[in-house]
């Protein structure tokens, strides 16, 4: 989580002149469209249509103005999680043998299924990164609130956004002070105990801080509800974007049905 929120990586937006189409669109619409898009793509299973979906995601990336390389690198990071499934799938699916390794047969069916999963996952994650990942976390919180997400969850998220950095700094300070007194982590009880103290101290400080924050909120008349300020408006470009996306998705579904019937 922290790496998403550290300052240099933090928002995917803010590339000056490159700030383009997507970041000016209504965040609520972007979240809803991402959900619709993800559900549609997951439901597709023809490889040609899925390739089409991936191309559509690439188009989203192109108009979003996000840095190409960096975003694709992040997508590859997600692939790291599913790579083993993809490698093992040909060996575990029954079907026509392709080749065998140590007596285990790899099947064509398995290979197609693995490709299908890889295409689906990458198309969806790319769309999520361009449509939702390009938002400031704060904006996302507001948009979720506007979409009637339970208030408590939104506030939990907002508090996390606000304080994760403070906790991280506290952690870094403690780590530095340990280092300055000659602490070198190793595989021994002293290390485990010291880390235990570190985590314990962070918990204690977090609790104390939460109490001070509550006190500060009470002093400003807090009575159990936080009102969020931001208001969103659908503009013409939102409508255009939604129409284009829906059209593209209909085309994908139509192609899927056509191939299935053929």
């Amino acid at each position, binding site marked *: 989580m922290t790496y998403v929120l550290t300052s240099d990586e933090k928002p995917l937006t803010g590339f000056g002149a490159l700030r383009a189409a997507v970041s000016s669109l209504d965040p609520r619409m972007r979240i809803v469209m991402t959900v619709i898009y993800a559900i549609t793509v997951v439901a597709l299973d023809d490889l040609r249509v899925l390739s089409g979906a991936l191309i559509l995601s690439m188009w989203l990336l192109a108009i979003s103005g996000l840095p190409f390389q960096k975003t694709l690198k992040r997508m590859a990071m997600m692939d790291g999680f599913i790579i083993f499934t993809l490698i093992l799938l040909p060996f575990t699916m029954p079907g026509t043998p392709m080749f065998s390794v140590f007596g285990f047969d790899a099947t064509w069916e398995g290979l197609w299924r693995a490709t299908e999963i890889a295409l689906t996952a990458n198309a969806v994650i790319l769309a999520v990164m361009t449509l939702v990942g390009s938002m*400031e976390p704060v904006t996302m919180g507001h948009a979720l609130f506007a979409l009637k997400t339970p208030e408590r969850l939104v506030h939990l998220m907002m508090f996390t956004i606000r304080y994760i950095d403070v906790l991280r700094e506290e952690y870094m300070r403690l780590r530095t002070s340990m280092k300055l007194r000659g602490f070198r982590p190793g595989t021994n009880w002293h290390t485990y105990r010291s880390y235990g103290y570190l985590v314990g101290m962070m918990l204690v400080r977090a609790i104390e801080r939460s109490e*001070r924050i509550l006190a500060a909120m009470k*002093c400003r008349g807090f009575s159990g509800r936080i009102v969020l300020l931001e208001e969103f408006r659908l503009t013409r470009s939102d409508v255009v974007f939604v129409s284009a996306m829906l059209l593209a998705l209909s085309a994908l579904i139509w192609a899927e049905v056509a191939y299935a019937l053929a």
Partner: protein
Amino acid sequence: MPLLELSDIHFAYPGLDPVLESASMQMQPGERLSIVGPNGAGKSTLLKIIMGLLVPDTGTVHAFGKPRAEEADFHEVRRRIGFVFQDADDQLFCPTVAEDVAFGPLNLGKSKDEALAIVDQVLSRLSLMHLRDRITHKLSGGEKRLVTLATVLAMEPEVLILDEPTNALDPDNYSRLIEILNGLDQAILLVSHAPDFRAEIAPEGYRLEHRKLVRI
């Protein structure tokens, strides 16, 4: 009629030695007082008692002409006294500066538009408009301090309580703070270890020693 009056306050944290024993003080309208005393003498405890965040074992708190004992009594007190916390990170909990400044007015029942108008008015009065849409945790220490002051002034309090406001301030922001505070007409209760700062803002006041408040 004094704005604030503490009489004969006793306070001890559970299981520890008493922090305050028959401590009394008074504050008149428009008066600027500072409280001095060594670390751990109970200054912050005293401020929390004034705000109703801690309940004294014995003794009474009078504020704005009424005795205040229950949590409900202190709702009005908290509206009329602005408390600036020692650590700005404790106070700025909203993601953006504008939201944080609007938090107090919204709690007072103002509408969104009114709250936003107050935000703009307070921030421009303190020449902080450039920070309006910044993310609070990315502000510098000095900026955070000035913004906490704005969040409190947005509630138009009659008294300001400042707990170590010069912590983490560079000379520029330090003189900005003095300038801002001297331009305010509120009564001020200041806790500060910095003698220069006290001399500028509130030269008179109380010393907290041996668990009592002594006028200096």
